[in-house]
């Protein structure tokens, strides 16, 4: 099977059909919910109605995704589509890594969690050399120092820092 989708379309052929079908299904579902999720107030002009612009969005999505599906050169599911679908599911492992990182920062602290996250994910990616591990560690430290200590971005102090003694506790909450 060729990787090119055809004359009128640039890109790979695999996975196009499941994506187009999924998009159309989601669009139709959202369009069906329009009457339930928006209101139309009598006596107001059409352009001031709360329903007008969501309708433009959902009907545009449904219409154009239907046309896109109709224009696809292949309209039957094939083995490469399932292989591509599996690739879409595998990525949820990294979504899990990211959300675990987000969940742990307010509990254990930005600095320790970032260092451990960078190290573990680097290892998970197959790097084992002390050089790469060292780079991951330095990178994690640099990110925390740049954003939290220097740029003072809003990342709350961790629950764990509450157990630290007085001055150290304030320092950790403010800068790390």
């Amino acid at each position, binding site marked *: 099977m060729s990787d090119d989708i055809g004359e009128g379309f640039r890109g790979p052929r695999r*996975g196009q059909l499941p994506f187009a079908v999924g998009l159309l299904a989601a669009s139709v579902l959202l369009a069906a919910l329009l009457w339930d999720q928006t209101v139309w107030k009598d006596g107001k002009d059409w352009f001031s109605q709360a329903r007008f612009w969501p309708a433009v969005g959902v009907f545009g999505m449904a219409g154009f995704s239907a046309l896109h599906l109709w224009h696809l050169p292949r309209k039957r599911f094939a083995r490469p589509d399932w292989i591509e679908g599996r690739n879409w599911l595998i*990525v949820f492992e990294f979504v899990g890594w990211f959300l675990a990182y987000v969940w742990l920062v307010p509990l254990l602290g930005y600095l320790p969690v970032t260092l451990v996250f*960078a190290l573990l994910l680097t290892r998970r990616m197959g790097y084992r050399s002390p050089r790469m591990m060292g780079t*991951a560690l330095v990178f994690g430290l640099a990110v925390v120092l740049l954003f939290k200590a220097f740029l003072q971005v809003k990342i709350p102090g961790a629950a764990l820092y509450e157990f630290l003694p007085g001055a150290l506790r304030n320092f950790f909450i403010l800068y790390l």
Partner: protein
Amino acid sequence: MQMVTEFLAQIQASSGILMRWDVGLALIVGSVGGVLIGAIPGVGPAVAIAILLPATFSMDPIVGLTMLLGIYGSSMYGGSIPAILINTPGTAVNALTTYDGFPMTTRGEARRALSLAYSSSFFGGIFSVACLILLAPVLAKIAPMFGSREIFLAALLGIILVVTAHRRHTLIAAAMASFGIWLSTIGLHPATYSKRYTFDLSWLSSGVNLIVVVLGLFALSQAFLLLMGDDEKIRLTRLKGSFFQGFRELLRHPRVAGVAASFGVVMGMIPGVGEFTAQFMSYTYAQKSSKRPEDFGHGSSEGLIAAETANNAVPGAAMIPLLALGIPGEALTAMMLSVFYVHNVTPGPQLFQNDMDFVVALYLALLILNVLVVAFLLVATNQLIRVVKIPNRFLGVAILTLSFVGVYSLRNSFTDCILAAGFGVLGYILKRLHLPVVPIVLGMVLGNIMEVKLRSAMARVKTPLDFVDRPIAAILFALILLVLALHFRRVLLDRKERKAREWSTSHASTSFASALSHRRDFLLTERGKRLRAKRSRFSRPSTDER
């Protein structure tokens, strides 16, 4: 004479803003950081700007914007390095640079190619800023003529251009832009105070944050893509000598450089068109007007000049619709718009009327930025090329770690992170399928502008024709019709061409005799099938054990 005096006074007033230490630091960090980010294939300015966006909210608008502008304006300089040395564009817009840059490297002229790329980029950047500074007084006069209906029509034109610019992906680009428009409507409707698509969830009442969407679609999706991919082995060429020779060589091609920079400025000003069209037009022009067109694609210096000059002339010009009308033309300027909103500065005609110092300061920042970047590259290219060797999957780890800062520092919300991860997966799927991502962001931004402006514009409109009775509104409406007409004409021509190609390559004969012959073959086959079925029905089934 009075205009020149006013103009010089304006520049003097604006340069005062740039004299601050924090603005200077932001310029240096932005320009050097932008070059580094551009030089790493797989990162790009969109990822960097998305990650840094929330960090700039605590800064002064001029400081934050200067830093983001620095990244935007300098990333293409850096992007030319891997394009020339390893045939991999650092940013998407450096793709055309590989055509002539890499062949020059293979024949041992890497230094010449890099030097030409730097000098062309520098010329493009300076040319566009010079045009903008000269155009500023004109823009200041035209911008107030844009009322609600003109801005609505300009936003509509922008969204149509963005969709039609995705040739061969127009339908899915339109679906994605509609998705963006729908996303912008989620939450409380400001005119009627009714909920829209909130599903009675409290966290959806305030709507979907643009930055969460941008971080998901650009940063997280890129991290996922890199983490799921493989590392590549990269061999770099050693570079010796100075990089000044390109400036001398550029002087020998003033026509190509001038035309390419002009294309960059004009295309940059039109929303949704941008670098790719400017590059394509400049490259085609350079090839057609060259004495040696056969060299293009095989290491032609003119081709390299055309590509690099055009793409670097765009960032400055892209700031025009953003600053004068508040309408972003592509994803990066859409992100910058949020910096204005956070600081309650509304870009548009009022900005040009009331805060011209600020506008000219931004242009001057772009000018200084180009000088800084070239100075940095002339000194540090040999050290800089090492960043090209950073393994892809480690880059994925780095982007995922940095994305956390971007999303979480916004509102310290776990829900925002889940939403960003969702958009990350969507962006990952779209990128794997080579489908457009940018229309979602522009649909969100322009959809919101269109909703607000249509409501205020319609208050004074009695009949549909009143909507276009002002000169600029009429011109914009005519442009919308023209763009749509040209698009449908192109679709029809493409279709016709495809059909003609199918007919010419078809092996099946279309003559009457061969149609009869096919019919006979078909009937004989069918008869054979019937006979075999009949025989198998009458033949006794075997009783042998199997």
